């Protein structure tokens, strides 16, 4: 007997399976792997079950007693003993044909979606594992059934068909086919991707899959990804998440971004979300929502830190350590009077290079360049470029500090304009 060690999924699917007496037991329809087994030990998911169709009846068997043989170049599926699986043993498994083959999966290293042409499996001792996915031309030709002649033609020209494999540990499968069974897949590998890359991938996924992948992310990551998504996708995902989960994600995001998203949502849904969000965050968002689309107020960040001019550098440092602001907020600090009116700005650099007992009034830059909240956005870029600023404070008509516009928001706005002009 010649037990093969490696074989392709396409070589067994649709082929007959036999028992030890060479009697046909049916046609192989699918292989079931345990997706969670990939997170420990070898990193490769073990094949648990096999779906076999015999005379219009579909049965799931344990793969333990199956093995793959190669006879005269043909792959054969042989079974020693048929052990049927019950529904508990079937649930939670990943179907290689239904959910992986021909579907899109995430290439973690390439940070993009790829389409699976074939799956490579290996049998070691008694266990069979899925080791790699084939996304290359060779896999595609093998599926169509013309790999051999094309290979021959290529060999005449002393070249080979480009083949491309990705190891199983470097892919994440997206299982959106199981609508009834709650699989609660962890998508642990996706959490390692940069939010921007993850956002690109989620945008490319279908509707169902994008919502499922997003809801599997933890709140912190989900908030970062949400910021990077296009408006269409943001709306779609917020509409498919539960109100509670959606509010949790929005709570973790800067108020100006939340205001932008809620603006695109239906009014009723937006109101529901605002009520579910934490009080102080939703209050900030509501203030921002008042500003019309093309005004500075609509793109400004309301998370700013302002200090009294009589404080010392040490006081400011203590306060910063206490609040632990995000870096954008940390880099641009403001001075206001008791009525919250803007007086001056100072930077984190001024704080770092000054002695602890120096007063803010000695290092601050008075009468700073500033914007009005109802000013038009298209004037901002010019001011940013003219004064070489990274952030500009925004005040209302009474000179009260309302927030700041960061260069990032200005660029985002410019890009959006250029895109819609096309």
């Amino acid at each position, binding site marked *: 007997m010649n037990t093969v060690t490696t074989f392709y999924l396409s070589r067994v699917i649709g082929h007959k399976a036999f028992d030890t007496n060479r009697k046909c037991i049916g046609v192989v329809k699918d292989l079931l792997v345990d997706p969670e087994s990939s997170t420990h030990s070898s990193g490769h998911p073990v094949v648990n079950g096999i779906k076999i169709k015999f005379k219009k009846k579909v049965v799931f068997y344990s793969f333990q007693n199956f093995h793959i043989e190669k006879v005269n170049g043909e792959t054969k599926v042989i079974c020693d003993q048929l052990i049927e699986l019950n529904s508990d043993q079937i649930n939670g498994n990943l179907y290689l044909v239904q959910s992986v083959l021909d579907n899109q999966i995430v290439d973690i290293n390439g940070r993009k979606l790829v389409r699976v042409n074939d799956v490579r499996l290996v049998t070691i001792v008694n266990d069979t594992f899925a080791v790699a996915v084939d996304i290359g031309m060779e896999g595609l030709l093998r599926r169509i059934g013309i790999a051999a002649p094309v290979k021959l033609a290529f060999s005449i020209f002393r070249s080979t068909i480009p083949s491309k494999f990705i190891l199983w540990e470097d892919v994440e499968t997206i299982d959106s086919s199981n609508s009834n069974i709650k699989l609660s897949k962890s998508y642990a590998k996706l959490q390692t991707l940069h939010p921007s890359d993850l956002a690109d991938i989620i945008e490319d996924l279908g509707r169902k899959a994008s919502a499922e992948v997003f809801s599997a992310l933890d709140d912190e990551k989900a908030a970062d990804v949400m910021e990077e998504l296009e408006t269409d996708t943001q709306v779609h995902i917020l509409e498919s998440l539960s109100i509670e989960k959606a509010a949790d994600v929005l709570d973790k995001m800067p108020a100006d971004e939340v205001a932008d998203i809620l603006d695109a949502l239906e*009014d009723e849904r937006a109101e529901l979300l605002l009520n579910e969000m934490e009080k102080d965050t939703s209050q900030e968002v509501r203030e921002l929502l008042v500003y019309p689309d093309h005004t500075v107020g609509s793109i400004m960040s309301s998370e700013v830190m302002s200090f009294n001019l009589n404080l010392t550098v040490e006081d400011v440092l203590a306060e910063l350590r206490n609040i632990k602001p995000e870096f954008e907020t940390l880099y641009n600090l403001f001075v206001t009077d008791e009525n919250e009116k803007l007086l001056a700005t100072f930077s984190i650099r001024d704080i770092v290079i000054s002695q602890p007992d120096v007063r803010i009034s000695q290092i601050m830059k008075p009468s700073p360049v500033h914007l009005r909240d109802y000013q038009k956005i298209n004037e901002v870029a010019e001011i940013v470029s003219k004064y070489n600023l990274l952030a500009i404070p925004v005040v209302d008509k009474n000179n009260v500090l309302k927030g700041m516009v960061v260069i990032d928001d200005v660029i985002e706005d410019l890009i959006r304009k250029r895109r819609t002009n*096309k």
Partner: protein
Amino acid sequence: MFKNKKSFFTRLGLFIAILGPGIITGSVDNDAGGITTYSVAAAVYGYNLIWTLVPSFMVLVVIQEMNARMGIVTGKGLADLIRENAGAKITFFIFVGLLIADIGNTTTEFAGVAGSMEIFGVSKYISVPIVGFLVWFLVVKGTYKIAERIFLLFSVSLLMYVISAFMGKPHWGEIGRSIVHPTLDINTKSISMIIGLVGTTIAPWMQFYMQSSVIEKGLKMKQYKYTLMDIVVGCVVTVVVAFFIMVACASTLHVNGDIINEAKDAALALKPLAGEFASQVFAFGLFVASVFSATILPLACAFYVSEAFGFEAGIDKKWDEAKEFYTLYTGILVIGAAIILIPNAPLIAISLWSQVLNGLLLPVVLICMILLINNKKIMGKYVNKPANNIIGWGAVIILVTLSLLLLLLKIFQ
């Protein structure tokens, strides 16, 4: 932000914002191949084939509505869905067929460019390379979106066929009679003409293009009403333009017994009958339609073939990132243009064969679509209603019957 009741103008604004996929698809539909088929059919059969536009319109609306619904619900392209549900083998044969048909169609578009410019006295050896390069440059340099809008504006010139038609002084009573009671002999010629007419009005590649544009627009189920309006407007434009082309050609060329083979012949033949202006209007419309389709068709084709086989695709990607996509796109464009430049190339045969291939592929694509859209796992509660299925399957059955009839007649003659 909290708006109250939607006023008429907000509604109108919403409609205009959503406007696009249906109308663009409808305009691209009347391409050089379409104009040729309509002119030839009318020149040979007069008003007697105009009735085909009525069932074509109904099927067109139903199919595009299905595409839009699938795009909105799944967020996936038609090629994606076919690949994921039909497997690699079937996908391969469908898309190789589509690729060949599209190369043929692109050739027809360049034939339209060459023919229309020759009427204005420009040699095809000048017009085709220039237009080909401009189209390629436009897309690869990423200014495609601007181009699309300019073309959409230009496609209003298609309505010039209406003028053309009136200048031919058609007999309206007779047109009405022919739509209700067409007189037609059943033979291979007339059946292949009917298949050609349906095949060019409901070209398979359009279904893929339509679904992708709906996704790109990010349309949602809430906007379904406006999407449907967009589709109906697009289909009306398609059919109205086709109607007037047929009327223009039938009331002049058919009456005089002129036999034409290409759209260019139609423009030339209109000159003594309807005047220099009508001929130039016809030629200009042909030129715009050809360039528009020569831009969109290879792009759409490269896109959905890449989608089906899992190649990276999109004009926002760099050449290195999406090598297969750009190679496909450039290849289709270059082959299409090059065939035109071969002296004495069998253009009519190419045009005819790509139409036949379209006609054969249409039922295959339609069957895939109907199976997909009735799949609860994919569409959830938005599966087809019985009426959609009846019209969809009806179209499949009629098309298959016509194709078989054509085959049988060919064998027994």
